[in-house]
């Protein structure tokens, strides 16, 4: 037994050493391979005077910011930034509800913002302190969750659309009907609001309807058009597509882009339905109880700098709400031409899944009923 233990330790140490060594060997190569050469000299933004030695506390997803964004800000302003992470909007709100432990900025998705405003978790921003707000595409201003642009600074957006296998689906889909009527295996997204909104949209109702009759019709529509449904995918529609279990699926842009980028092939396509794409957008917000709102707003202004913003968009591969970053040529051509950067002018009916309060129950019930009737 003692011998076994020793062998075990030796083996483990060897594994660790190999891994460590291989990690070090390649550290040089990776940077030279990267075509996202980072050059802080291209940043037009300058830090306002008087922040030296101060601290800023950011609350965000772990992978939702550029790798140099924070360190450059620290250098430019002479400040220290603490970056903590959360894994979903609900967890972040739950944490703040128990008393903000000292965060200045968070990055909530649109639907949770009305909840945060109602629960007094946010404080208004001072637009005069953020001159780079002018860089934002006007399309992303005055949205339902913040009609007067009091609380939010738009960050990155995204879409939900139809991902498909180009080898099996010869004619590119362009409507929700194409997935409902497709002659072959398809998957739906396991999100009640998304699928019922698609049905409502096809039926000509408001995708954010709170009318029980309309939602019931949408439910019946889903049931009636489920003959080709083989799976309701929670977060693995792209995997079903890759395994060939389905030819078409309703998916988020980020997930499908990973598949496209990974396979380096033409096999997968992603399109938005002509009826209207389902949009989402994350915004920077100023948190109630944050110790340093002034520096927080300086940071927001910095993130809105065209170069800084373009770099973030390139790295995290989400489309930016910053028009100046795109027009300044700071967003990678390859990304701009990929399906995750759709031209929304061509899809005028696009909409958000808005906050509907208690009517959420309506959707959850209708969805459960639909799944039972379909037998999934």
């Amino acid at each position, binding site marked *: 037994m003692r011998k076994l233990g020793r062998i075990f330790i030796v083996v483990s140490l060897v594994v660790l050493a190999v891994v460590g060594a291989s990690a070090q060997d390649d550290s040089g190569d990776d940077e030279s391979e990267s075509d996202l050469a980072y050059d802080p000299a291209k940043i037009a933004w300058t830090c306002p005077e008087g922040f030296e030695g101060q601290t800023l506390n950011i609350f965000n997803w772990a992978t939702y910011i550029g790798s140099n964004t924070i360190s450059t800000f620290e250098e430019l302003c002479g400040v220290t930034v603490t970056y903590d992470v959360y894994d979903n909007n609900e967890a972040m709100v739950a944490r703040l509800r128990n008393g903000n432990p000292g965060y200045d900025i968070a990055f909530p998705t649109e639907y949770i913002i009305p909840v945060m405003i109602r629960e007094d978790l946010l404080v208004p921003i001072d637009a005069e302190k953020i001159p780079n707000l002018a860089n934002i595409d006007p399309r992303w201003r005055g949205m339902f969750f913040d009609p007067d642009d009091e609380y939010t600074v738009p960050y990155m957006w995204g879409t939900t659309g139809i991902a498909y296998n180009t080898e099996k689906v010869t004619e590119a889909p362009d409507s929700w009907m194409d997935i409902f009527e497709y002659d072959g295996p398809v998957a739906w997204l396991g999100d009640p609001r998304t699928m019922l909104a698609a049905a409502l949209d096809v039926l000509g109702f408001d995708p954010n309807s709170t009318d029980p009759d309309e939602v019931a019709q949408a439910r019946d529509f889903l049931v009636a058009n489920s003959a080709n449904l083989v799976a309701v995918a929670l977060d693995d529609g792209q995997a079903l597509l890759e*395994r060939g279990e389905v030819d078409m699926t309703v998916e988020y842009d980020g*997930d499908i882009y990973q598949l496209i980028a990974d396979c380096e092939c033409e096999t997968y396509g992603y399109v938005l339905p002509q009826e209207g794409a389902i949009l989402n957008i994350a915004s920077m917000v100023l948190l109630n109880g944050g110790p340093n709102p002034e520096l927080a707003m300086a940071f927001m202004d910095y993130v809105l700098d065209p170069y800084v913003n373009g770099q973030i968009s390139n*790295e995290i591969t989400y489309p930016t709400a910053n028009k100046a970053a795109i027009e300044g040529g700071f967003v990678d051509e390859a990304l701009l031409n990929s399906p995750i950067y759709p031209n929304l002018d061509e899809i005028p009916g696009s909409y958000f899944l808005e906050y509907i309060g208690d009517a959420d129950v309506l959707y959850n019930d209708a969805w459960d009923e639909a799944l039972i009737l379909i037998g999934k």
Partner: protein
Amino acid sequence: MADSMAKGGSGYADRSAPSVSTGRLRRDRAINLSGNIGMWVLSIGGFIFLWLPIVLLIIFSFNDSRTVNEWRGFTLKWYENIFNDVIGAEARFSTALMLESLRNSLIVGVAATAISTVLGTMVSISLARGSYPGKRLIDGGLFMPLVIPEITQGVSLAMFFTLSFGALSGLIGERVNFGFPTIIIGHVVFNISYVAIVVRARLADMNPRLEEAASDLGANPWRAFWRVTFPQLLPGIISGALLAFTLSLDDYVVTFFNSGVGTTTLTVFVYGLLKTSVSPEINALSTLLLVLSTILIGVSLILQRRNR
């Protein structure tokens, strides 16, 4: 294994051949054999059930593909990505953030383990040796953290801290806030129970006469404890501490709800990566953690063996 059982069976048959009918004997042997095979299958099955997912995780941490659908060849690139900030669509992994969260996890783990091991050991000794009113109540209450849902524990602790910090801020006129101390206290709360239960199991096995003998021979209670009780308890205390450390590293709910600025632990960091579905970097990181913790357990096993 089945072979040796069959041999044992035949030996039995030889000895008792005169008094028992061969039919019954054969039946007994069959039952014996099938029972043993059944147990063997069950234990192997259980073992596979426990280890297969982990083995798969390790294998796929070397897979040259972002998804687990197919094996596309051996690669160490996910391990490299952990140690180099990788950006772009390829991967998104912040090494600096990971290392910092690892450091935070170790701070919390070591502190919470140290405190809860001392307190848990004291509690178990007091419950086993002491006699005072309310002992049974405390005994029962000790199990509470094991049965209360973690989310209840996390939220109630956070509420408690918020309320007491509010009162405290009013008293001393300075803002008191969440941070490492609140996370560590949260972990100590559930760890005490685990340590106390493990140590108590060890205490129950010990012979109390040894302590009495030490007292008879003139040792005062303090000396009797350190020279006689403690050395015998040590394996239990070490197991309890290891268990506490593992639970502490593992915890997400209590940690997240009682976290402060700059206290992101490794578990919280890994959850935070989920914005962009599960990446193979997480498999690689989990494998490294698994290797590390197995080394820890291996070392402690060897230490315990030497001590005996």
